[in-house]
């Protein structure tokens, strides 16, 4: 098992992220201010609504959901697409392809380090603060374990989507355009900017089967024990959906990548 080699990449990633010490502090601070903005907006929205519960979500539910979604977003954010386009333009991609490790595996494990750092530095503190402020509105129990599992699956789904979009960069220089389309779609359809519970009925039905939901909505729903995820019958379809998308996107990504690399090498791109 070459797990040690993989963990070495994780370690290097952790060290590199910590090099940016001031950057890390500023990131934390900026996040805090952002959350304050989110708080005021939804406070105003709920105050104007006049009712405590809208679409089955109380103000506290919505806040926890959005704050944790933001934290998850920061923790899951990857720059694979940008890195890829830069290494294509500089020609470094050739070196990446020649590395003794499979390119996909290599990229995944290189990012794992910064994931660990960001999870500890952004998600965990946010989680603790939310827990204290809401006086235990987050159920604490076995759901935490399920949440961790769901997050790992979300990470894989997110990575697979990133890789597929990054592969498109082999064909066009328009990285900005491709990236913004991806980001916009993911943010809207995953429920990171507005909880899916607020979506109109038909729209929500469609979105529930798309992979984007597996990234933010499912882990958070499980954590908050909503939609019957406190029972096994409610939980299994969620994990099933995540797993299914993991497999589909990974396979599709690998096929697309291999096909594209072959095509590019043949054309001498």
């Amino acid at each position, binding site marked *: 098992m070459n797990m040690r080699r993989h963990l070495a990449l994780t370690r290097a990633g952790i060290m590199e992220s910590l090099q940016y010490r001031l950057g890390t502090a500023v990131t934390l601070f900026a996040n805090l201010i952002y959350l304050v*903005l989110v708080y005021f907006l939804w406070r105003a*929205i709920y105050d104007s609504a006049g009712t405590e519960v*809208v679409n089955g979500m109380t103000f506290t539910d919505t806040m926890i959901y959005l704050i944790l979604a933001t934290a998850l977003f920061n923790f899951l954010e990857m720059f694979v697409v940008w890195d890829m386009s830069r290494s294509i333009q500089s020609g470094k991609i050739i070196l990446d392809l020649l590395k003794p490790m499979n390119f996909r595996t290599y990229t995944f494990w290189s990012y794992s380090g910064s994931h660990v750092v960001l999870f500890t530095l952004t998600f965990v503190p946010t989680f603790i603060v939310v827990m204290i402020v809401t006086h235990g509105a987050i159920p604490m129990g076995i759901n935490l374990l399920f949440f961790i599992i769901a997050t790992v699956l979300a990470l894989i789904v997110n990575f697979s989507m990133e890789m597929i979009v990054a592969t498109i960069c082999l064909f*066009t220089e328009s990285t900005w*355009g491709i990236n913004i389309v991806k980001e916009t*779609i993911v*943010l809207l359809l995953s429920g990171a900017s507005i909880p899916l519970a*607020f979506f*109109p009925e038909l729209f929500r039905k469609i979105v529930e089967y798309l992979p984007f939901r597996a990234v933010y909505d499912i882990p958070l729903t499980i954590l908050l024990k909503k939609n019957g995820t406190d029972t096994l019958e409610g939980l299994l379809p969620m994990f099933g959906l995540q797993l299914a998308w993991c497999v589909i996107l990974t396979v599709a990504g690998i096929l697309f990548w291999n096909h594209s690399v072959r095509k590019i090498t043949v054309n001498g791109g």
Partner: protein
Amino acid sequence: MSDTTMTRPKAKRGFGFYARIYRKILVQDLKSKMSYRADFVISTFGMIMTNLSGFVTFLILFKNFPTINGWDYYHMLFLYGFSLVALTPVQCFFDNNWNLRFQVQSGDFIKYCFRPINVFFYFMSEVFDVKGLGQLAFGIGTLVYAWVHIGIPVTPLVIAKLVLFLLTASLFMIAIMNAAAATCFWIVGSGYVMVIMFRFKDFAKYPSSIFHGIFRILFTFVIPIAFVAYYPSLAILESNNVPVLTWCAPALGVLFFYLSYKFWMLGVSRYDFTGS
């Protein structure tokens, strides 16, 4: 000064000089952009998607909550359109801020320091982003639609006010992004500051009366997102009852822009160029 090169008479490099240079760079840049049509199409598509998604978010929100802090649908839509138009200049003319940290880190930034022109100008002039124009069209459409439904009279005075306050609003957004970008001169890995500041702009389209206490001051005078749409647009929406801060906005906008420029230039002078 015996050498001939030293005595060559020099005209002053004033506003006219910079305007002329910018125009020339712009024309050349547009010409070369025409040759990358695929990029243009994809980027425009991306821009339309972002705006559509922002709009959909807005619609979903209003489907669930009919008013926010006493603001109804069309007034909110007006604010939304106003903020989109006000964002155009920062996107079209100051987009190179996004490249700043890469150039600073790699040391490539040094090339801007060897010319006898303003470093800030030289740096910003390098990129004109056409994509911002798509957003402008979207913003104007939204603004006009809301305008008609609210029933604001169209007089030359109102139009003049609109232009003035749109420009004011832009200045605040430019100032925010300049300052955010300039942090990279001091802080390695500060890219996230820009990302989050740019995300703050999404909150500009809500009335800043939703903020309370110290945060109201923070979002008005420190990170002035309240000025990116809310205060300037009150000049049109509440023409009978314009708050003092709205009247101060143009002067404050110039001040914020000036301060952000100074901060940016301070970064340049403090920077060690050790990247090479």
